[in-house]
């Protein structure tokens, strides 16, 4: 298993946001986390790269293994962890820099990379994010001049540039129009050959379209996890069925 959580609990102060979540994800698969707002799916996602650490008063209990090693073990290098586990946010967050500098941002954090190699890796990341053809002639232009869909693909390219093993996506298309959304979904299929992807989504069709495995969260609990086709056709828990058939949410 690439990722495995064991009785993972998250507390915000004295409010419990996640209850004993056991969930495993295989390498090079796409796992979709679904559930109504406030169900804990984003909280779970943000444990995987420890972005929860930036919120004051967060306590995480239980185990969360990446390649068998607990990422919450004392002494774990969070910076190194985040280079292995990339993240794309709900709202595209290009930095106010050029397109090139955005993609190169993560690469420039490490040891100095020669210019030719940097150019190559930026091109490769943009190609993988299906953005290269659209921006190759304007790499020095500001990233803020791109359309919403392009900005989100830029953020994907930026995350891919540092060669992570896992890619976390927190509702990456919720602010995009259907065409831009379709482009990103198409992109995800190709990316699963190289990366283990975890995607939080509000959109059940999206989960059904892109993922291999779907996990349904409700009120901080993992209610059901199954291969996507099974979960959407034969949910075994009543709550799951009610949610995917749109009876609440």
């Amino acid at each position: 298993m690439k990722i495995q959580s064991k009785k993972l609990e998250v507390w915000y102060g004295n409010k419990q946001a996640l209850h004993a979540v056991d969930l495993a994800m295989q390498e090079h698969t796409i796992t979709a986390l679904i559930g109504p707002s406030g169900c804990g799916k984003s909280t779970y996602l943000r444990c995987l790269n420890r972005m929860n650490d930036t919120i004051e008063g967060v306590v995480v209990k239980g185990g969360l293994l990446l390649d068998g090693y607990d990422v919450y073990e004392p002494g774990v290098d969070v910076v190194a962890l985040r280079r292995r586990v990339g993240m794309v946010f709900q709202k595209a967050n290009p930095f106010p820099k050029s397109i090139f500098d955005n993609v190169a941002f993560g690469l420039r954090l490490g040891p100095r990379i020669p210019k030719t190699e940097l150019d190559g890796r930026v091109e490769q990341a943009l190609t993988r994010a299906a953005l290269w053809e659209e921006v190759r002639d304007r790499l020095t232009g500001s990233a803020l001049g791109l359309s919403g869909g392009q900005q989100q693909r830029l953020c994907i390219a930026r995350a891919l540039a540092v060669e992570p093993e896992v890619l976390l996506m927190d509702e990456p298309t919720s602010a995009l129009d259907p065409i831009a959304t379709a482009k990103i979904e198409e992109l995800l299929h190709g990316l699963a050959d190289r990366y283990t992807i975890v995607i939080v989504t509000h959109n059940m069709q999206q989960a059904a379209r892109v993922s291999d495995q779907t996990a349904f969260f409700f009120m901080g609990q993992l209610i059901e996890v199954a291969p996507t086709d099974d979960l959407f056709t034969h949910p075994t828990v009543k709550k799951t069925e009610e949610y995917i058939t749109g009876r609440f949410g």
Partner: protein
Amino acid sequence: MNRNERTGFGLLAICAGFLVLLVVALVGYVVSGGWSVLSFGFLTEVPRNGMREGGIWPPIFGTIVLMLITAVSATPLGVGCAIYLVEYAREGWLVRLIRLSIRNLSGVPSVVYGLFGVGLFVNGLGFGPSLLASGLTLGLLTLPWTITASEEALRRVPRSYRDGALALGATPWEAISKNVIPAALPGMLTGIILGLARAAGETAPILFTGVTFSRPDIPHSVFDTYMALPYHLYILSTQHQDIVTVRPVAFATATVLLGIVLVINGTAAVVRSRLRAAQVG
């Protein structure tokens, strides 16, 4: 629009118009008073004949060097303090104490800064009455301004710039130095420069710390006394034995001081728009 709306907006427009009128009147009054003696030589020559003739180069030079010392001393301290408050400090008694100190500092009358400057820089550190002592005193005076402006600029940077950098494996300091500060820079610079412009016109803090009534040349080092525009203006307007004759010189001095302040403010505007344009493209 109905009649009440029109009257309302009309009154607001009059308020705004009055402000413009005030600026025009003030600048016009000062410039017209000094017009007769303003010339290129006025900017480059030293005062002659008991300040009745010649130029005001020494006070211009003094004010400019003073601004440089103020900027160099206040900016790193103020920006550093703002970064600490916004990015690192956790709410608690220490932060409350720092904020209370900043608020109180900004309320201290400038003449008290002057006294403090005497105690700390002139006597305490032994700089004597000098450019350095005055520049550092003005640096303290602008500190609350610099901190507040930098803090606001940092707070306006979206959280997503920090989180985005952290998620790419940046350390907290890398996220701040490579992403947050560049984004906050236009706002920070604007605030800092405006603080300097305000300091340029201060008289009280330099009064006890090194400014001199008259000297025939420019200072040779930062430990020398110097002339400065606001004090020169004060001397010409109240202390001169022949106030009526030197009145145009006083007005011309005021014009130059206004000019310097406007140039500084203009620089702030240009710097800000350049940096913004570089980011948005």
